[in-house]
């Protein structure tokens, strides 16, 4: 696992298993894994598929910063965030946020915080491809 990068933007499918192995150390009692998944509708309007685009060189640094922000707020261990770009079919994972901590409350709080902040500031954009053929950036 030594070659695993904790903060990654990739066009390849995401796999949580190596991320969980990466974050977990012997003093951790909790690992929270958040998977953001492409779903089949938004507000009831049917979605055909999604595509994601990133300012990848910048986004990796932002993800690192967000993990550091969380670390100043809660006693957590290692963090990994992998975000996918390109076309995603319904049910495919767009983002994984994985946080280990000695205790679960910190792991939950930090994972949710990091995901909220990704949606606020990480330079990663989602394009909705509606089932009716329309295409729209989600802003």
């Amino acid at each position, binding site marked *: 696992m030594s070659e695993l990068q904790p903060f990654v933007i990739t066009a390849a499918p995401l796999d949580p298993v190596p991320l969980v192995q990466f974050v977990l150390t012997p003093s951790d009692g909790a690992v929270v894994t958040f998977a953001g998944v492409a779903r089949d509708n938004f507000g009831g309007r049917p979605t055909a598929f999604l595509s994601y685009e990133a300012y990848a060189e910048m986004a990796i640094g932002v993800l690192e910063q967000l993990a550091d922000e969380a670390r100043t707020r809660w006693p957590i261990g290692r963090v990994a965030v992998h975000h996918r770009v390109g076309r995603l079919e319904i049910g495919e994972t767009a983002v994984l946020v994985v946080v280990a901590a000695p205790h679960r409350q910190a792991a939950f709080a930090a994972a949710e915080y990091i995901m909220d902040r990704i*949606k606020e500031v990480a330079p990663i954009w989602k*394009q909705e491809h509606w089932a009716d053929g329309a295409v729209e950036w989600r802003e």
Partner: protein
Amino acid sequence: MINVQVRFFAGHRDIVGRSALLVELEPGTSLGVLWRMLSEQYPRLAAYTGRILFARNQEFADPATLLVDGDEVSFIPPVSGGAR
């Protein structure tokens, strides 16, 4: 004069029709002034004023930041939203 590379993403790239522009600027031009210049050149960008984040050399920056030759800048349109 200084040369700055501007990178466009998502809705901005659709408006500008390119993913990057090399622009020649007066020394002392700020990020915010560059945004105003681009909004005049591409009027549909102006709708994003007040809703963007400013980035210089792949880090967030204040719009008052003065640009220097060789900078890479971007104006980050609102990122992938959706309900929490």
